[in-house]
């Protein structure tokens, strides 16, 4: 029964809900933003998340994990989405950790995943080079030089790039931009010589950075996966990352939606709650359906990972989930502002944070256009 949670998953979800509500509510993100916090997340909160085991949920016990599956990680992440919690959970666990888990040698996994699970190693995937998601359009070059590689290039929209200890840099070792072949993934210390990181402040107040790599030298032991075959690791990682993001955004969409429904019940105009107006009712009911569909596509996608379905089936589920949830969250967060009226336009009120988050998340690892097209191609039309 892949479409429902088991008891353990339900317990995990409930405890995550409690934790996020109490320890990492939207007020925390607001504070980080208003204080211009250099980390962009709260290190104490992260420490507590790690203590709850969240950073090790998907890894095997051999690698310091709980072996609790992506569905477990998904329900936790959904709750962090409800509170728009900024933490390394996404970039480090969903993305970076997955890349190591998928592409790493046993040695790499043994040395790095326990550090991830222990919260001491933060990761970031340095992939994008332009304003639109384009995983094979890599121009950053890595040239072999003796047993080493020298990397030159520029990366943009690197999530947590400003705080990560290690970057996973996607570089081209052969071929030309657009080729799937010829990509290689490198583990690069953020503080390595030639690495220059500029934090980019985004509308959602979450961490991202531009990264310039000038003559950065790494050894062949820092290659993740095989040289020129990095796309195998990258594609698998990206699909996990998309599913994880969909899980997070599902939480955000539900929260924005539920807050709006509550507001419709409370706000009185013309002597009645505005939720009694049929014009708003019908829009609310239609959104309810879309949110229900989102729950289903996310559950199916998480199950696909844990069941070990084929790469193609996972890819379909990932594109379906990112497309559907992204579209719905965009709709719901905009309607949330509209239905809240004037108060929704104020910074003092939280609902606007959801709309900003939706806009940035829509651009993360492929927007609706990208995933619609990909879903069609995967389905063969």
């Amino acid at each position, binding site marked *: *029964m*892949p*479409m*429902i949670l088991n008891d353990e998953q339900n317990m995990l979800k409930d405890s995550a809900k409690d934790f996020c509500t109490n320890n990492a509510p939207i007020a925390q993100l607001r504070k980080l933003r208003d204080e211009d916090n250099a980390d962009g997340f709260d290190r104490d909160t992260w420490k507590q998340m790690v203590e709850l085991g969240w950073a090790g949920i998907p890894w095997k016990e051999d690698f310091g994990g709980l072996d609790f599956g992506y569905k477990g990680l998904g329900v936790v992440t959904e709750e962090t989405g409800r509170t728009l919690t900024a933490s390394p959970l996404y970039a480090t666990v969903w993305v970076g950790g997955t890349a190591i888990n998928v592409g790493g040698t046993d040695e790499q996994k043994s040395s790095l995943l326990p550090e991830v699970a222990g919260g001491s190693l933060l990761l970031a995937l340095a992939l994008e080079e332009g304003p639109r998601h384009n995983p094979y359009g890599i121009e950053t070059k890595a040239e072999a030089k003796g047993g080493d590689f020298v990397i030159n290039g520029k990366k943009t929209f690197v999530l947590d790039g400003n705080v990560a200890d290690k970057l996973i840099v996607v570089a081209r070792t052969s071929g030309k931009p657009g080729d799937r072949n010829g990509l290689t993934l490198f583990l690069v210390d953020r503080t390595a010589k030639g690495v220059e990181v500029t934090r980019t402040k985004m509308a959602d107040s979450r961490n991202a950075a531009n990264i310039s790599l000038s003559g950065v030298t790494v050894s062949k032991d820092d290659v993740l996966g095989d040289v020129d075959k990095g796309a195998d690791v990258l594609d698998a990682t990206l699909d996990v990352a998309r599913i994880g993001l969909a899980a997070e955004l599902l939480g955000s969409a539900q929260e924005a939606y539920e807050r709006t*429904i509550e507001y*419709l*019940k409370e706000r009185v105009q013309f002597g*009645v*709650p505005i*939720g*009694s107006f*049929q014009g708003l*009712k*019908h829009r*609310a*009911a*239609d959104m*309810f*359906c879309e949110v*229900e*569909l*989102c*729950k*289903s*596509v996310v*559950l*199916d996608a998480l199950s696909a990972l844990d069941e070990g379905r084929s790469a193609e089936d996972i890819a379909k589920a990932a594109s*379906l989930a990112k*497309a*559907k949830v992204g579209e719905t969250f965009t709709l719901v967060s905009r309607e949330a502002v509209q239905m809240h009226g004037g108060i929704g336009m104020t910074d003092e009120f939280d609902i606007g944070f959801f709309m900003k988050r939706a806009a940035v998340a829509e651009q993360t690892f492929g927007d609706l256009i990208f995933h*619609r*097209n990909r*879903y*069609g*191609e995967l*389905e*063969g*039309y």
Partner: protein
Amino acid sequence: MSDAVADFRADVEDWISEALPSALQGREMGPAGNGPKRTDSDSQKWFDACYERGFTVPNWPRAYGGAELDKARHQVLREVFRAHGAPQPLGGMGVTMIGPTLLEHGNDEQKERHLPKIANGEIRWCQGYSEPSAGSDLASLRTKAEDKGDFYLVNGQKIWTSGAQYADWIFCLVRTNPDVPKHDGISFLLFSMHDPGVSVKPIVLINGTSPFCEVFFTDVKVPKRDLVGQENKGWTVAKRLLQHERSSLSGLGGGPRADEQGSLVDVARQYLGVDEQGRVADPSLRRELIDHQIRSRAFALTQRRSHEENQAGDVPTFATSIFKYYSSETRKRRYELQLRMMGTQGVGWEGDSFSDDELALTRTWLRSKSGTIAGGSTEVQLNIIAKRVLGLPD
């Protein structure tokens, strides 16, 4: 799965391999599931085999022709049927609507008299609900039934009565008290369509077919033993029956029909062609095709989730309320899209210049418009979701 259920599965597997005529695999029954006799012998054979095992109404008591299957076994039966491409042996409003309603609300005499004839396909039923001025506002119905001692005298008119021209009996909402709030004066009657005073007039739809009728009642005498539930409490019975209807209309558990899903892609390829990469050549219609497929797939997953939740918990699920709305809107959009893909070949009416499939599309497209009107319109469904699920105030 328990051993007993596994045994049941093995038993049914054995039986179906014998009983199902191979010519019927993956097909529907000839004449659409009403009436006891089939025009073709394979269908008749299959019907008889199912009836013998109680499988025309698998979860009904044996006393009424069923097999008394519990939930788990019923599910096994469905899975075996599906795996073998076996058609449902019996459909219609007897099995899907009035039968389940009588099981809950009928008295023993009514059950004994009516249910066996539903199970064996002898009696076909129709539904006397809507009236010309009572559509979405069903409870404002005016057909009146006067108490005449032993019987009610029924006068009035019904509309949108599906299959009335073929039906033997009708389950019918009537007003027995006009002086109370509208929901409180309604009763639920059963009577024969062959009774004196009942007349039927088919309605021609915009697609040229006549699946519905107007039904007129003039001094129809209905014995009181065919009042279901209490007098003036018929609305409760009616609402329960509507739930059976909605879960039936939404194809609950079935998902979008496989033939409908697959073929839209085929239509796109056929009428629009494909590019070098095998993609549908028109980027605009391809985009709409994918959006439709995404929508359909997400909906099918939601049906599956609802089903699993149902299986797991028995709690009434959140999601059934969206099925009627979402499936009818999706189906409507699907035909709009197909129409546009097919260009001028999609808007033919008759004649040799169009293939049978093309002509069928025009009719099905027009017919699909009723999906968001009949059985609780889209607007009514959205009201229900807003009220019952979201708790928004009236």
